[in-house]
């Protein structure tokens, strides 16, 4: 199975381990990723906050590139995924907006390009059955909560991802890897997103609520699928005893026994080594 891979700007910098782990996990699961040639930034929050037409145009160009290559796109970053899906939604609706975007990007929209998150590629295209057969080191005794964040699930009519208030796709995956997945109430609450630089105190407050709820649920770690959620959880947690958080692809790397996993985990700001050693050694 071949998919066009749209990493997005964060995965070239602060979320480097998400990029590395995504590529490695897909290779292991037989998903061939071909990086979308000459992709541009999706514009993230800044573009849609200031100029909605530009925001749609930036993602339309990426859709046009994938269309030319005749491949579906898979996106690890929740924000990029949301922007691409939004532009695709506008193009599908047709009318003036579609005409404008086609003129702006100089292409003819066919609607043939599917846009899926990397989680969906792993869970739905590779499949839970295949993954469970490949698990070498089950994540025994690792108590986690799955944190989906905002952009993977909302708005429901555009994303079409799982269930909007209580998504379970990542929970199912983590259970298949052997983790002790705790139910909790904050799966789709906001981490503060791009306020991370501009309103630090707001983000710190939101992150404290998230980690508080995770602890209350009995979790030792949080599993994420968004670079911004992950970096806010890592960088905007205050006080001692910080809760580690992981990209779901790193959890896959651990359970499937991928050799580069320690390198990815070594890039974390909150060192998860203690927790990982405990988990890895618990089945001996």
């Amino acid at each position, binding site marked *: 199975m071949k998919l066009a891979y749209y990493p997005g700007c964060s995965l070239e*910098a602060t979320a480097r381990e998400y990029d590395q782990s995504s590529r490695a996990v897909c290779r292991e699961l037989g998903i061939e990723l071909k990086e979308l040639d000459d992709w541009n930034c999706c*514009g993230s929050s800044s573009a849609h906050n200031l100029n909605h037409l530009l925001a749609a145009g930036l993602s339309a160009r990426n859709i046009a590139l994938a269309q030319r290559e005749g491949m579906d796109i898979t996106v690890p970053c929740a924000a990029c995924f949301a922007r691409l899906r939004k532009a695709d939604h506008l193009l599908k609706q047709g009318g003036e907006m579609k005409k404008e975007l086609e003129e702006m990007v100089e292409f003819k929209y066919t609607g043939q390009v599917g846009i899926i998150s990397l989680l969906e590629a792993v869970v739905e295209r590779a499949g839970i059955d295949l993954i469970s057969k490949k698990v070498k080191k089950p994540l025994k005794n690792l108590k986690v909560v799955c944190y989906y964040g905002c952009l993977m699930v909302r708005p429901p009519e555009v994303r079409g991802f799982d269930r909007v208030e209580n998504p379970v796709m990542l929970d199912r995956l983590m259970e298949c890897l052997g983790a002790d997945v705790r139910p909790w109430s904050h799966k789709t609450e906001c981490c503060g997103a791009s306020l991370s630089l501009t309103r630090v105190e707001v983000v710190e407050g*939101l992150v404290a609520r998230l980690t508080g709820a995770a602890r209350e649920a009995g979790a030792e770690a949080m599993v994420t699928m968004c670079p911004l959620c992950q970096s806010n959880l890592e960088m905007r947690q205050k006080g001692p005893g910080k809760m580690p958080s992981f990209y779901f692809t790193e959890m896959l790397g651990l359970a499937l026994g991928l050799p580069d996993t320690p390198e990815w985990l070594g890039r*974390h700001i909150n060192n998860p080594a203690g927790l990982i050693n405990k988990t890895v050694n618990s089945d001996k």
Partner: protein
Amino acid sequence: MRVISHGEVLESDPCFAEEVKNHSGQPIDLCYHCQKCASGCLPMGVVGGITPNQLLRMISLGLKDQVIKSPAIWICTACETCGARCPNGISIAAVMDAVREMAYTENITVKGDSALTFHRLFLGDLKSRGRISESFLMAKYKLKTLQLFNDMDLGVKLLIRGKLPLIPKGIKGKIKVRNMFDRSEEKMRIKHRDPCEGRQAR
């Protein structure tokens, strides 16, 4: 038109509600203030002091100044919880984008809030190369807002872990991306030029 709020007389812009409805494509009038949006909105409601439904009411009343100069519209993180829970199908995030776009086109600045500065720098970086360099963006933002030493420790940690590449990547299609910027900015200027066009007679 004028609106009296808490004993204060506020100027009202009769075209504002129509303008927001047109730009956002959202049926603002359907809001019956059940406050499902408000209960799910932490940043704006708790920190910003205005809940999403209150903002819709202000728009309906034509309180343009109070809306587009409000710091609350920049605290909204566009998490879209409000719209996903709205029983009347109002995408409040689309309304927020529309009012922020108006504030941006009218060059409104909010004292003490640097969100707009951040977004401008972000788009500037994107326009120059077609992609964002997070390292450049963070550095530019810190310089511009004179917060050089905030987060210095985090910056060092990121650098050591190989997460702040110093050579930014550009794309081959950057001229095309720049043209898209110019075209969309021009379209936006036209769109926001005269909200009351053709309505003065009323």
